[in-house]
């Protein structure tokens, strides 16, 4: 059992009457790949938002590598090594795909030069050993976006925006990556190729990943562990084979037919 790098202890969050999270307790082991499932409004994104600092839990503690990050702003959490992608890709819409990545590496360059005004775009980023431009081109290629590199992001197709969004998150070389519905808005044909590619990159980088997903096929295929959310609670936390057979999960989230279908498929494989 590899070491625990992220722990969420007894998180509660409510918006007025709505309870978005109640008594959430999760430990995340280094290198694991976890799927977060649940119907809309079950509290998946709230969970992600709390960990990544967009929301502050009403109660509870989040620690990352032993550091309490509960009330840190997103940028600090990112600097510590937790990054995320978004359900609706969050891009810089007036820029090209390449520039979007250059911004990400530029931010790192600034951090490493302590934000000096003289920081040059051409210089090599010490900890990466490459220049911003090189790094940007490299990841553009790695994520198969070369053909889009000089297009304004606002005109990119949905799937490409998703990938770029994730590529940007990965550019910070996070220890933990959250993917918020990576396949939503991606066509059925593309989704597996895309996920294969992304998961490959993530595995190579040795990044721990938690992904919010509605598509049970995707969940089965990539996750070693599933957290099932319902009305802000975690109603199941186990290996997908077991979690997806859990009555309440079947009742509230997956629905029997789909479950059988998915599990059947898996046994064929």
């Amino acid at each position, binding site marked *: 059992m590899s070491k625990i790098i992220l722990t969420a202890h007894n998180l509660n969050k409510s918006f007025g009457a709505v309870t978005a999270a109640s008594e959430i307790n999760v430990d995340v082991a280094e290198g694991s790949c976890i799927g977060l499932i649940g119907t809309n409004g079950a509290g998946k994104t709230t969970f992600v*938002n709390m960990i990544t600092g*967009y929301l502050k839990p009403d109660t509870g503690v989040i620690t990352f590598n032993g550091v309490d990050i509960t009330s840190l702003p997103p940028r600090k959490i990112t600097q510590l090594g937790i990054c995320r992608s*978004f*359900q*609706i890709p*969050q891009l810089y819409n007036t820029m090209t795909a390449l520039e979007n990545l250059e911004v990400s590496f530029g931010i790192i360059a600034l951090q490493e030069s302590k934000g000096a005004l003289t920081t040059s775009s051409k210089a090599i980023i010490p900890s990466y050993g490459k220049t911003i431009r090189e790094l940007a081109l490299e990841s553009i290629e790695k994520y198969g976006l070369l053909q889009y590199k000089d297009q304004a992001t606002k005109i990119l197709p949905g799937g490409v925006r998703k990938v770029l969004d994730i590529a940007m998150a990965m550019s910070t070389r996070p220890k933990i990556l959250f993917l918020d519905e990576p396949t939503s808005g991606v066509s059925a044909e593309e989704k597996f190729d895309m996920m294969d590619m992304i998961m490959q990159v993530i595995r190579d980088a040795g990044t721990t990943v938690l992904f919010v997903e509605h598509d049970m096929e995707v969940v089965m295929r990539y996750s070693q562990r599933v957290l099932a959310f319902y009305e802000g609670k975690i109603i199941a936390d186990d290996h997908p084979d077991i979690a997806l057979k859990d009555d309440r999960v079947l009742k509230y989230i997956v629905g029997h037919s789909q479950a059988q279908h998915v599990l059947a498929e898996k046994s064929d494989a």
Partner: protein
Amino acid sequence: MSNLLIVLIDGINYAAWLFISAVGLTLIYGVMRVLNVAHASFYAFGCYVAVTLAGFWFSHNYPPHLSFFALFGASFVAGFIVGWILERFLLRYQYAKDEVVILLITYAVFLILDDVLKLIWGVDPYYASDPYELLGNFSVGEMIYPNYYLLMVGAALILGLGLTYMLKMTRSGKLLVSVIHDREISSAMGINVGRFFSLTFSFGCALAAIAGGITTPTISVVPGLGVDVIVLSFAVVVTGGLGSLPGTALAAIIMGVVRSFCVHYVPQLELFVIFSVMALVLVFRPRGLFSLAEARKI
């Protein structure tokens, strides 16, 4: 020294004037997210229309007590028409632009209209104080006030409550509120957003003009009298929370009363009052007293 009642009366009276002057601005912003600098020109326009009509009215000895309706009505209509033209032929094509750019467009319009007014009415001051004196006075202790102040307070109340009623109760009001909350959805639901916009804008301009009309009998109408009003109105509207009627009302009252206190007790501070209040409020409530809620971004 002066007793509080007097201070309060002066404060309320000034507050009423501030509210009347600012309400059009906040309405337009609330609905269209347009901060209309030309508001100043419409205020001035209202003044000129009213003062001209008043001169005509009283020289022809029409029934003096009807003059109020004539004055206010005239400036309202005039403001509405010009406002409509402005929206229809210029602003309508700019909504895609950035909030601040639209603001600059209205600033340019303000510069232009200001000179247009000068070309029409020249630089001579006009006044029409008959309506002001018509109503006689009331007195608090031995302090005499013209009843016209009551009329201004009344006008402020009517405007405030009337608008609230329109937004809350009437059908088109409710539709308008939905437009305020989400343009795209509303137009998807088949609401003619464009029409609401031109109506709102014209109406807002009409309110600015009527504010001028109501003020006219107490002042002398001179070139450039809008400039001061627009800056004050900005302060009031922003302090109240852009686009919020109750906010505007509350801000007007606070500013009016605070100012009146200064005038009576520390006249030296009068000059800073308004903007200090504004800055203070914004420091503690960055989006003003009654700010519109913001939607989740991610």
